[in-house]
């Protein structure tokens, strides 16, 4: 196991802004597992190597998790918090199967570094379940917008985010606005119906 090796700002020499500029908002898939140094999301720059403990706000609860700079949000959710709704389908996020909300915006957890989520609000599909499931998963069931179901949690989150932003979306807007997710079984026709039903249901 790699030992924790944390040093403070002065030596690291780059700020959070520099890091984001340098790596791009979406880090290349191949870079995700590289043993590179990553700046923490602090005003004062910090360089982290090896494993370090951070706190993540997930579904309204604070969780202490141990991450390396290369650890993705998806790995933390799935392996440390056992929140396996978000799925690893494509590391580059092109399937949308790992969609969660980060500060209410849909992102793909498969290509988001966990360390970059410090201080932000993470919402996973599990938050739409429980005793009284959210209207979106209920509409997915009613309109059978799922078959094997592996893409479904990502799709549910994409629909939830889209309808949060466009609560009165028309069918045309739904057909144009939900193209970030891939389903192999071919549930799209029913996903459209489910989204329309949620709009109608208010």
């Amino acid at each position, binding site marked *: 196991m*790699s030992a924790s090796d944390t040093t403070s700002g002065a030596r690291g020499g780059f700020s959070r802004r520099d890091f984001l500029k340098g790596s791009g908002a979406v880090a290349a898939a191949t870079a995700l597992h590289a043993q590179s140094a990553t700046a923490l999301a602090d005003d004062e720059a910090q360089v982290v190597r090896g494993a370090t403990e951070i706190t993540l706000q997930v579904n309204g609860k604070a969780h202490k998790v141990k991450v390396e700079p290369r650890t993705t949000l998806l790995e933390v959710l799935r*392996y440390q918090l056992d929140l396996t709704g978000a799925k*690893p389908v494509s590391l580059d996020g092109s399937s949308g199967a790992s969609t969660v909300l980060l500060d209410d915006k849909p992102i793909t957890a498969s290509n988001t570094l966990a360390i970059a989520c410090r201080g932000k609000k993470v919402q996973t599909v599990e938050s739409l379940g429980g005793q009284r499931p959210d209207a979106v998963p209920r509409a997915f069931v009613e309109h059978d917008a799922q078959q094997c179901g592996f893409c479904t949690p990502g799709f549910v989150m994409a629909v939830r985010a889209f309808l949060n932003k466009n609560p009165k979306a028309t069918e045309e807007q739904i057909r144009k606005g939900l193209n970030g997710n891939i389903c192999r079984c071919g549930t799209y026709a029913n996903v459209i119906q489910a989204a329309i039903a949620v709009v109608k249901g208010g």
Partner: protein
Amino acid sequence: MAQDTYNWPAADKTSVIGKPMSRLDGIAKSTGAAKYTYDVNLKNQLIARALGCPHAHCRVKSVDTAAAEKTPGVVHVEVLRGAGSEVEWQGELLAIVAAESEGAAVEGLSNLKIEYDVLDSFVSDEDLMAAEKAGRTAPAGGKTLTQKEPGENDDEEAFIAAEIERLFKESKHVVEGYYGIDAITHCCLEPHGSTVAWEDGKLLAYLSTQNVSGTDDGFARDLGITADDVEVRCDYIGGGFGSKFAPDYWAIAAARIAKATGRPVKLMLTRDQELKIAGSRPSGYIKVRLGADADGVVQVWDSQHWGTGGSGGGGVAHGTIPYVYTPKNYRRVATAVRTNTGPARAWRAPNHPQACAMSQTAYDDLAAAMGVDSYDIFMRNLENTAGARTEVYAEEMKIGARLMDWKAKWHPHGKGEKRGSIVDGLGMALHTWGGGANNSTCQLRIHPDGGVQSFCGTQDLGTGTRTVCAQVLAETLGLKVDQVTVNIGSSKLPNSGASGGSTTVGAVSQSHRRASTDALTELFKLAATKLECEPGDLEAVGGRIRVKSDAERGMAWKEACSLLGLKPLEVTADYRSGTPSSLSSSGVGGVQMAHVEVDSETGVVRVKKFVAVQDMGLIINPKLATSQINGAVIMGIAYALFESRIMDPATGAFINAELADYRLPRLGDIGEIVVELYEPESERGRGVIGLGEPPVISPGAAIANAVCNALGVRVPVLPLTPKRVIESLQAAGRA
């Protein structure tokens, strides 16, 4: 068991079967609670990743694992293909690294030092001449049939050759064409893989599989144990489509590593490995000549087709050509092409989608050549379809045409009204499939408190098997679906067949109907004594056991079950595939029609409307059946317009093996899909027939024919990408 002991209630007598119920595991799936193989996290588990071979054809020269083993977090390195191994396709797994985290496993893989001797590769499956030149072809069978038989003194081959030529000379219309369909992959969203653990010498394998009852043997054989020491579990599977019947060598390797390290191991393929090695559908390319009479009924068919299923050759079986229509005279010859590509696996309706796309396109070109409505040509040729399905096709064509408004929308090929550079077109195709019931065993336990549990080693691929089992039990026992508990998804449950070839719905309907009927017979005996009537006088309806002729005379389900005393009633029923039974049958048709628009400047094809008319015998759940068809059509749109495995001819590399590059349709790409479940009493009376395969067969040909109708130019090879559309227009001097 005599054939007619078991039967289904009449359509107007059912309360659960035939009703559009939502799937029982719907909320679990849509809120992330459903646990797939990839999701199972066992205590202290290692995460394993495998290294795929970078070359299409090579010999491994040396493998040095030292640096990989020293990588922080790496616990175990296993070499699968050591020095001297020949590897015949890119992506084949060479070594596995098991580590404390994904990151450490991936870093460990990057520290493996492997040297290769790169060998010549061949991946150009469409280019038959190049394949022959490279010595990559082999005969793959064929068949010739002519109405006139050779005389005793005739040389058979010469006679048939002369007879075929004579028939072409006599033909009023002759069409020559070239058609094809590229190889595609299964591309399961949950990759192949397993999460495995040993306890007391026994293996627990969570496996992403279509075959829980049949994979324990595979583990046992390769690990030197017996199947009773293996439990394969799969509660949920993220797509299979025919590619997940076996444990695969990587799951066996995971089990070995788990044993060696004494820790559970999770090994799932990466996305590019899933596309490269975990299943593909053979390509098919065909040269066809057909001759028809004045009415456009094909009298003679002559074709040569080829394709690849990987390094072993393979391709599309000649028996499916020409598809659905079997003219009175034909000659078909198949050639297999060996390529350095990942091996083919059964892909939803093996052979049929390619055969349909390679032959019903030629029938459409006949319509184009004659200037006749394609619908009429497809209808007139029904005289050459097999047996009883002919009338079903005719009926389904009429329904499809009405739903599509075919006659009003139709225009002769290439004669549609243009809106700028955009023109519309219509196309259709027919398909067929068996879908008979597989083997299945159901154990049913009825408890004295009224609880009902079923146990069956089947699996739910997302088709709704779990829900279908519950519906059959509930219907038989006069209960609601939430009053029965269905247990599936483990090899420790009573054996049930693999879910492939649309055989599951018939299988589980058989075993669950039989078990619940037998259990009810026992319960009726007890209730009859109490109600002072004959067991045969009783029925189970609405949560009660009651006298048929006097509905007031009866007892609640729970009260009837309490007559069992202290012990639950246990009944096991078995169905063997092929046993004649009124509960299930085999053989379906199906008609599909596509309305597309094509932009002749950009080459972009859009499906505006798609109509699918499908028979499937008795329908247990129309909501789930409709989903199956919707999904099959969308999968069909995928291979018709978007997806193909793109191989680099120079290096043999699979160059689009990531989802960003392996194009699949998205939600905005599908247009309007209209599904019509064709279930007249004549079909319903045949019993349950599988539905998974048939509706995925026709979309390729139907869409290709619609594009041809729009442009007046055949775009020969699927998928019909913008590039191919433009190239075809250019070749025809139209762009």
